[in-house]
């Protein structure tokens, strides 16, 4: 079987609550897959099922072509890294790395060799004889990754590994994980609620909601062509502007404005039918100032609030009675109360069916 990890019709219920609903997911060898979603969407649950820490209600799980649905976690060929690091507190770092191997009955030389390799890779050699309590959060998480590394497995599972770290460490370790993946070329499944982590690390992102995968695609596809309102709203910060309108004959009408969207690429490949729609425009795709005249869609509005954020500025205004934000370079930022011309290109926007919320 060519898939590294494969989930077939997986369901999980806690009593009457369906946490996962007949889920299918195939992950290629060496792929970095990120499970992304709000809390309670079932992403960690799915990871725990793959790890064998939760018993599934229905369906199957294959790892490296082997049906592991009933296997113990240790027999699945996985290593796992946890949010709270989950190091054994009274054991030294070296013992933390070696304990599982000793229990599995490995020879001392083999254990030493693996620890040497892992600690070199993660630069934790100076820490080997320390106790976890004497390590910083970042160091602890390196050790936790090392513990997964020494198991010498094909699949790594990460359960929100960076959530307990502060922002600076988080971005450092994020790069580190990416480097590790490039070097090891293992399959990695990574759960997070942080979209930056997802966008930067993933080969593919699976966006989940209520136990169902909404979209499974490369990060840029998810960003540029979200399949529905949920995905569109979840990815991107500040989030996408949504304005209710009506689509007819290549034009979206909203609140007295008529926007020509003939450049928009419909999913059907054709012009689309007349219907109520929601127009989605990302704040960073909005143009003001000199370039605005070249934009196919334009309108005039008053700036209500300006939020400077350093390199860029977010401005709040209204379009057709609904909040509309835009992101600009701080140098060219508008002033509060200023009336300016605002433009965008429909080819970079998204249009959703107002009823179903799916992209058209």
């Amino acid at each position, binding site marked *: 079987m060519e898939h590294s990890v494969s989930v077939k019709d997986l369901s999980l219920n806690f009593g009457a609550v369906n946490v996962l609903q007949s889920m299918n997911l195939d992950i290629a060898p060496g792929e970095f897959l990120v499970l992304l979603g709000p809390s309670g969407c079932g992403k960690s649950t799915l990871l725990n099922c793959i790890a064998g820490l939760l018993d599934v209600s229905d369906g199957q799980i294959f790892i490296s072509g082997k049906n592991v649905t009933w296997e113990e976690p240790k027999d699945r060929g996985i290593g796992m890294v946890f949010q709270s690091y989950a190091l*054994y507190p009274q054991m030294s770092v070296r013992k933390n790395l070696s304990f599982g191997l000793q229990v599995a009955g490995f020879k001392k030389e083999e254990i030493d060799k693996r620890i040497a390799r892992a600690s070199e890779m993660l630069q934790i050699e100076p820490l080997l004889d320390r106790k976890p309590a004497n390590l910083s959060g970042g160091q602890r998480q390196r050790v*936790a990754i090392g513990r997964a590394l020494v198991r010498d497995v094909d699949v790594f599972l990460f359960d929100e590994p960076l959530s307990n770290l502060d922002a600076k460490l988080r971005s450092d370790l994020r790069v580190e994980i990416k480097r590790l993946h490039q070097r090891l070329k293992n399959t990695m499944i990574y759960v997070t609620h942080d979209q930056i982590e997802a966008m930067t690390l993933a080969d593919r992102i699976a966006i989940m909601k209520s136990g169902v995968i909404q979209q499974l695609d490369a990060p840029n596809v998810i960003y540029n062509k979200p399949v529905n309102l949920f995905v569109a709203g979840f990815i991107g910060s500040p989030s996408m502007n949504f304005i209710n309108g009506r689509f007819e004959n290549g034009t979206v009408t909203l609140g007295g404005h008529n926007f020509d969207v003939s450049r928009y690429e419909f999913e059907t490949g054709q012009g689309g039918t007349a219907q109520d729609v929601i127009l989605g425009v990302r704040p960073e795709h909005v143009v003001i100032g000199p370039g605005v005249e070249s934009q196919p869609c334009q309108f005039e509005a008053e700036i209500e609030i300006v939020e400077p954020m350093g390199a860029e500025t977010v401005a709040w205004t209204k379009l057709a009675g609904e909040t509309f934000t835009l992101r600009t370079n701080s140098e060219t930022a508008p002033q509060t109360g200023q009336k300016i011309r605002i433009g965008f290109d429909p080819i970079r926007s998204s249009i959703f069916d107002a009823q179903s919320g799916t992209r058209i």
Partner: protein
Amino acid sequence: MARRRIKINPMALIGLTPMIATAVGVFVICIIYSIVLSFTNSRLLPNFEFIGFAQYERLWETPRWLISVRNIWLFGFFSIAFNMIFGYLLAVFMDQRIKQEDAFRTIFLYPFAMSLVVTGLVWQWIMDPNLGFQSAVRNMGFTDFRFSPLTNEATAIYGVIVAGIWNGVGVTMAILLAGLRGVDEEVWKAARVDGIPTWKTYLFITLPMMRGAFITAFVLQCVGVVRVYDLIIAMTQGGPGISTQMPAVFVIQHISGRSNVGLGMAAATMMLLPIIVLIAIQQYFAWRSRRRAAGIGAAVATLPQAQGVKAS
């Protein structure tokens, strides 16, 4: 603002008066008074004829006291050891997703709700040589069965130990179970992924993580052991002979019936010693963990608080 703290609110002082009176009056003055009396030859009523360490010399020549000391060590060692081991085993077994957990907990803990007098009387009845457990088993056909620890000077103290364990194990179990439940669930997951067998995880990973809960249970037991009085009175009255004498009983006997206050107070002062050692050890651990907490990444406090782990 800092200066306001130093200024004493008169109302606060009034509110705290009973506490200050108790702390100073009872736990300082009374203790000092007791220690002072131990150096006098007070009989029924206190007097202040100081006789140096004579009472202590006498004390350590009194068989009744020597037996008491031997008994408290025996009782302390066996009841605490059994209590901890049995308590931890019960906690571990209760942690195995037992469906009837609440029922079992109720059963293991109810003896603690009963007084030690009741405990002593019930076990005395069960250990009755003629009509108790022994005769019940003999009536089943095992005619040579012997179980009457309380009638024999050599075994009476073990009978008391059995009753004491019955009364107190549930508490240890409850504290240790709370400690077990306080262990980060992800540590358990990590151990499973590492393939560490359950019993090894309990022994090598969670047990050392529960030092706080163990110390709590241990200290609680120690205080109980030093204070043991009711159980002896109800179960054996110190007998047969003086074989189940305890320091606490010794002191009460000497300040009441035997009216030898000086000797009694010398014994009471001796009782204070182990507690002071214990407090010193506890203070040392507290100081050490404070120092550790001051280091990088303060370890999460592990004291079991049934109010639930507060997410910070």
